């Protein structure tokens, strides 16, 4: 028993140490040798890592197909920029306002998610996110309409500070994801995804856990959004766009859905995209979106039985290998 526990603890830590190691390597190199461009790319990658974890939590673990994930991200952006630019609150308050709005919104989404499933849930999300997008344009006095709001100049941080904040946030969310995955919550999430009826009959309150998953996931995305507002120093309704939602999804799917590694591996796609843009500057923007879309389509053609399962199979392989190691060491 005791040795089992030890082994298990080692397994729990192993990917985490690897991840933190990889992140620290990144951290050490970019600000020292990298220039502003490199730091920008790294920050974008970090943002997508955070968003990736957030989506992974909701869809990869809890099995609720979040199609308009940029909704939570955008609300985080707006929470920060409105409270700082309009109401002159401190940054921490902006963060909390973003979180608060997101908790309310995600409770609604979660509630819908505990009542509806499949296509209907997806359509309800599209409807909600359209409404919020429209409101973000129409509530001009609050949101600044299409042109958005500017953050006051005194909140400008230099690139390396932003970089470190992004790095810390990315590490924190990675740890949070790994912790949640192993905790009671994570077990319940996966259980309700795999077999909602059985989890119900085993005493798990499926509706509550669904709402919980949405709230946790939205809070993570909100964090990324609030940071993005500080990074861009402005907001605009484009943060709700479908392209961002799809990018988040692709980042996770490419890396492997349901696993801690997923978003981190997948964020290399964001880095690649930004680098390519740097090499081929003009008239490439629509191509970059097309490339993202093609990656997804090719994956679908190669695995017609379900993209979701590709991620799972990668996850299984990872776990399977380490499992063998355990049995050998025994």
């Amino acid at each position, binding site marked *: 028993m005791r040795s089992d526990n030890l082994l298990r603890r080692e397994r729990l830590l192993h*990917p985490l140490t*690897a991840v933190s190691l*990889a992140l620290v*390597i*990144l951290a050490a*190199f*970019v600000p020292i*040798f*990298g*220039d*502003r*461009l*490199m730091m*920008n*790319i790294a920050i974008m990658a970090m943002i997508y890592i955070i968003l990736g974890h957030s989506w992974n939590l909701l869809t990869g673990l809890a099995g609720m197909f979040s199609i308009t994930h940029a909704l939570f991200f955008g609300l985080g952006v707006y929470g920060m920029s409105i409270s700082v630019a309009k109401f002159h609150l401190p940054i921490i308050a902006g963060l909390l306002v973003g979180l608060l709005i997101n908790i309310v919104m995600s409770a609604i989404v979660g509630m819908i998610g505990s009542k509806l499933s499949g296509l209907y849930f997806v359509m309800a999300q599209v409807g909600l996110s359209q409404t919020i997008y*429209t409101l973000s*344009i*129409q509530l*001009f*006095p609050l949101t*600044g*309409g*299409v*042109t*958005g*709001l*500017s*953050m*006051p*100049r*005194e909140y*400008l941080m*230099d690139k390396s500070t932003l970089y470190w904040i992004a790095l810390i946030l990315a590490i924190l969310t990675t740890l949070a994801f790994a912790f949640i995955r192993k905790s009671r919550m994570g077990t319940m999430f996966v259980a309700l995804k795999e077999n909602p009826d059985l989890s119900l009959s085993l005493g798990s309150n499926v509706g509550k856990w669904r709402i919980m998953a949405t709230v946790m996931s939205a809070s993570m995305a909100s964090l990324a959004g609030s940071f993005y507002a500080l990074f*861009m*120093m*402005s907001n*605009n309704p*484009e943060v709700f766009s479908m392209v961002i939602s799809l990018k988040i999804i692709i980042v996770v799917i490419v890396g492997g859905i349901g696993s801690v*590694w997923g978003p*981190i*591996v997948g964020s*290399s796609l964001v*880095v690649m995209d*930004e*680098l390519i*843009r*740097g090499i081929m*500057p*003009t*008239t*490439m*923007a*629509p191509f970059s979106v097309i490339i993202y879309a093609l990656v997804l389509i090719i994956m679908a053609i190669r695995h017609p039985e379900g993209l979701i399962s590709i991620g799972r199979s*990668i996850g299984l*392989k*990872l776990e399977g*290998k*380490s499992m063998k190691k355990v049995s050998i060491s025994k």
Partner: protein
Amino acid sequence: MLKKTIGTILSTFLLASTLAGCASSSSSAKDESSSSSSKGSEPFKISMITPLTGNNTFGGNEFKNGAELAIEHLGGEINGRKIEMEFADGPDQNATLSEFERLYNKGSRVFVSGYGSGADRTFATMVDEMQVLYLSLAWDKDLIQGKSDYFYRVGANVVDFSSGAMDQAVSVGEKYLGKDAKDLKVAVVYTSNFEHIVEPFKERAKKLGVKLALVEAYPNDTKDFVPIITKLKNTDYDILVPFQGVTDGTPFQKKMHELKYTPPLTIGAGIYYDTPVFSNLGNDITDGILSQSYVTPFINEEAAKGSKKFREDYKKKYGHDPLTHALQAYGIVNVLAKALESVDPAKWDDTKELAAAVKKLDIDYGELPWYWGVSFDKNNSNTKADKFILGQWNNGSLETVFPDNLKTKDPIIPWEKK
């Protein structure tokens, strides 16, 4: 095993990207050192990030053309040093920001803003830290947050523009409809995308006591305009002021024509109503409609130096009449040129000196082809970019009718349909 592979791939990739970063940073360092060693002989670069792809390609290309023509008219050099325009594509905010960083890495230190630059908000807070001189044409009222040494708004701001539109409506009402502000009834129709433009207009109306008989803000994806036009039909008003873009202006005007409804008087608030797209609807629709423009080359030839030359050369070079967009880009490069003229070319690479020269600029109305003058206030906003032009469509061309010193024709109000 797989985990290891992924780990290896990841770290290889990280290493590769870091190396790439080092390479690019070292090359940019080389650029700088070489340019500083041979001061004055290297061409001086002015960068513009403007949408060359995406939804705003049209305006973006006009900007590019205008800036190109400006360099050509300057002879490609100022005070003996060559100047060059460098263009980059910025279809959206994110891409604009990326391109900005890329150009900065390559050594660009002087920028003029492109068409509809949504990223100018970000630049307004960023350029001081980077010591980049940025001349902006973005018109958001709250664009500049506090004092800056490097960021300048050379164009007009939206509050001046749209409250100016209200003033134009009032003066037209007084002069031609015989109604003073208190009796005037105005209907406003606009896409909710333009809320930021209409807000000051409404405030101005409140201040002047003008009654807004109908305020209709429709979503920007509205396809069916019949209900809105029906509402207009049933409203009693004197002047219709639409704030519309290409996507909604054309179907709106077409539907009005189909329903055989002509408003008593239309004053289009620029944006769409002074473009060739609108004029393509045909004289039946366009004739008689007034439009407030930002700047236009179609003004009295004596009023602004070089406006005729710009208009004619532009048409010769690009095959169509220049739009307000092209003139804006042309104008802003000319403003920068004025600043460059006042500084020794060897010192151009010192953006601090250059920024100080821009700040000191004091140019009167009519000195530049776009008629506006230049004089910056403490927030670096141009105070002399506040004169707007009211034009009237007459037989397929937009004639300037207000103000009096710029006009090419007298307005015909009310317009008699032939």
